[in-house]
């Protein structure tokens, strides 16, 4: 099968989101740090793109750049972000604020800091909807109750007048999801939406997000460090390492038959639930700091298959047959070719 998945899997004509060669820099006293370097991907309508990586890989930064909430002094220093074909990375604050909420919904890790503790959840929902949609007070309230029902809050008609602190953690995250969805955005950026929750609640929230994205045809970028969550939820995955995309492709191919040595090591590090292993594979060393990203491929000092070219030249995303991986092993011109030793491959 030689179908190359560099395009999204979803339905519809064009992608909702296009990110091209995104570069984010942080000027510091000791020089400019490059936090994201040449990140590119698309998300189609109704599609869930998982973005995984370890801390510091730049996955949250990518989400923040898309919703226009980069922490200063961080700035977009290159590339393009397009929403429905329209460029949004260079918009001033006010037009971008209108896009946030109306066209892009955001869900963050900690549901308590996302909600305003001084307003009832109903008021927050109503205000969000009325900012972006033309609704009367009564209509907005009816819809607020409808959204709370949709995200599975029992007795929604009464709970709509409760304050955030009256909800448990899992219920709060449901409110946050309702808040992100209530203006019916085309794209949702969810940054670790289940990380602060216990596993039994996590499963409920994942099921909810998946269902809503499918029903509403919303595109979703799901940022998480948990491969299990990705495997359950995403259609495609982008694996990030040191501010770059290491591998991108359909979820099944990336999880079951990773092609990039980093993805392979990452998958082998995850303790399996269905058996005990004598020794977990792991990856030696740690991700480089932004101030010391190695020349060539950023993964080369930890890579078991490293060869000369990796230390000099940075690999682009290359076709591996199933996914696309930033690895010289997949360039026919390299002196070393991809070994048959990758798991499941």
């Amino acid at each position, binding site marked *: 099968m030689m179908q190359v998945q560099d395009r999204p899997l979803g339905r519809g004509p064009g992608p909702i989101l296009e990110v091209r060669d995104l570069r984010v820099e942080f000027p510091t006293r000791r020089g400019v740090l490059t936090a994201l370097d040449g990140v590119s991907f698309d998300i189609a309508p109704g599609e869930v793109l998982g973005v995984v990586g370890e801390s510091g890989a730049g996955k949250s930064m990518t989400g923040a750049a898309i919703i226009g909430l980069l922490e200063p002094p961080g700035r977009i220093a290159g590339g393009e972000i397009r929403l429905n074909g329209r460029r949004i990375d260079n918009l001033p604050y006010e037009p971008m604020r209108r896009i946030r909420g109306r066209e892009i919904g955001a869900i963050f890790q900690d549901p308590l800091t996302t909600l305003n503790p001084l307003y009832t959840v109903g008021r927050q929902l109503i205000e969000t909807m009325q900012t972006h949609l033309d609704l009367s007070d009564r209509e907005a309230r009816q819809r607020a109750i409808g959204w709370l029902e949709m995200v599975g809050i029992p007795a929604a008609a009464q709970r709509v007048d409760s304050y955030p602190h009256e909800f448990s953690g899992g219920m709060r995250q449901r409110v946050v999801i309702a808040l992100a969805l209530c203006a019916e955005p085309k794209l949702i950026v969810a940054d670790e939406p289940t990380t602060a929750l216990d596993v039994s609640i996590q499963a409920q929230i994942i099921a909810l997000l998946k269902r809503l994205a499918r029903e509403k045809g919303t595109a979703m970028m799901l940022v998480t460090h948990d*491969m299990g969550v990705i495997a359950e939820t995403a259609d495609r995955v982008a694996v990030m390492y040191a501010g770059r995309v290491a591998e991108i492709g359909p979820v099944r191919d990336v999880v079951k038959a990773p092609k990039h040595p980093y993805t392979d090591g990452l998958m082998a590090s995850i303790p399996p639930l269905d058996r005990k292993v004598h020794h977990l594979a792991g990856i030696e060393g740690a991700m480089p700091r932004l101030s010391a990203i190695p020349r060539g491929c950023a993964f080369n000092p930890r890579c078991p298959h490293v060869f000369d070219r990796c230390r000099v030249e940075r690999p682009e995303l290359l076709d591996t047959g199933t996914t696309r991986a930033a690895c010289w092993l997949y360039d026919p011109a390299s002196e070393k070719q991809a070994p048959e030793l990758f798991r499941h491959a």
Partner: protein
Amino acid sequence: MPDPVPMLAAEDVARSFDVSRPWLQRVLAGEGKRTLRAVDGVSFEIPKGTTLSLVGESGCGKSTVARLVVGLYRPSRGRILFDGVELEQARADAAQRRRMQMIFQDPYASLNPRWRVRDIVAEPIRAFGMVSEAAAQREKVAELLTQVGLSPLDGEKYPHEFSGGQRQRISIARALSSNPEFLVCDEPTSALDVSVQAQILNLMKDLQRRLGLTYLFISHNLAVVRQISDRIGVMYLGRLVELAPAETLFTAPRHPYTRALMEAIPDLDMTGRQRIPVGGEVPSPISPPSGCPFHPRCPLANARCKAEMPALLPPRGQPDTIVACHAVEEGRDPAPAPAGADQRMGTTATAL
């Protein structure tokens, strides 16, 4: 022949906390005192050289057990025996106290940022007066750092110069410096990235083999626990609901809560599978439900479960396991199935 005296024995240990509002507010509102029963009658033994893990969701009391076991809290009821000696007595004796150490979750908070690594690692050696000579101390620190996979030269650095995984190695070196036999590890890998977590788990297993250590391992991650444990206790609202050998717990989980937990974990093999998550949330430990604390979320609950607290009993045909469940006792639970069995079926049944 294994030592018959367990390294640690907990007998009906309970710990409650007073969470009442201030006196004046209480009087004005006309309400009484409120207590939170964080741990409510937990018993277990850890044989020497083995690992017992406690798993559960936040608020189940697992970290409180860890703190009780090292003497950071005193139990409100029950007793804890360390190598056959009352814990309080053992804690009073430095020679006994040095035999137990703790590793904490957050390697960013548990190391003093203003001390050099060599001083951090040497602190227990000095506190217990184990090696007095400076040169011998340096040698011991170098040996400890090597043992956890760091370089002796790293002793000159400060904690901020290390990554999370390396810091956790420093915590482990510090814990090992008093030559302990028993380590209490409270979520030692939860703050770490997965590739680093694998390194630390391997290191801990390796040290256990080489030094004959006994671990009490606290975690919320069942997959991690499976890799490291001999026996596993599942906690819910301050109580043990199931205690079983690690393999048995995964191949034949019995308590409905254990089964729900296993079902809830997103598994890599489950790609595309629809799961039925357990409903509801953990109730407040301040006002736990009557009878079995799991009954409001349990698919097998009946009138007896609502009224009567189940005892920990071995289910039929599984003498090594104990389960606190009326349904299991009465034989009305579905046949035990290994964790992951339906997942694999799910993979083949669901096209992506």
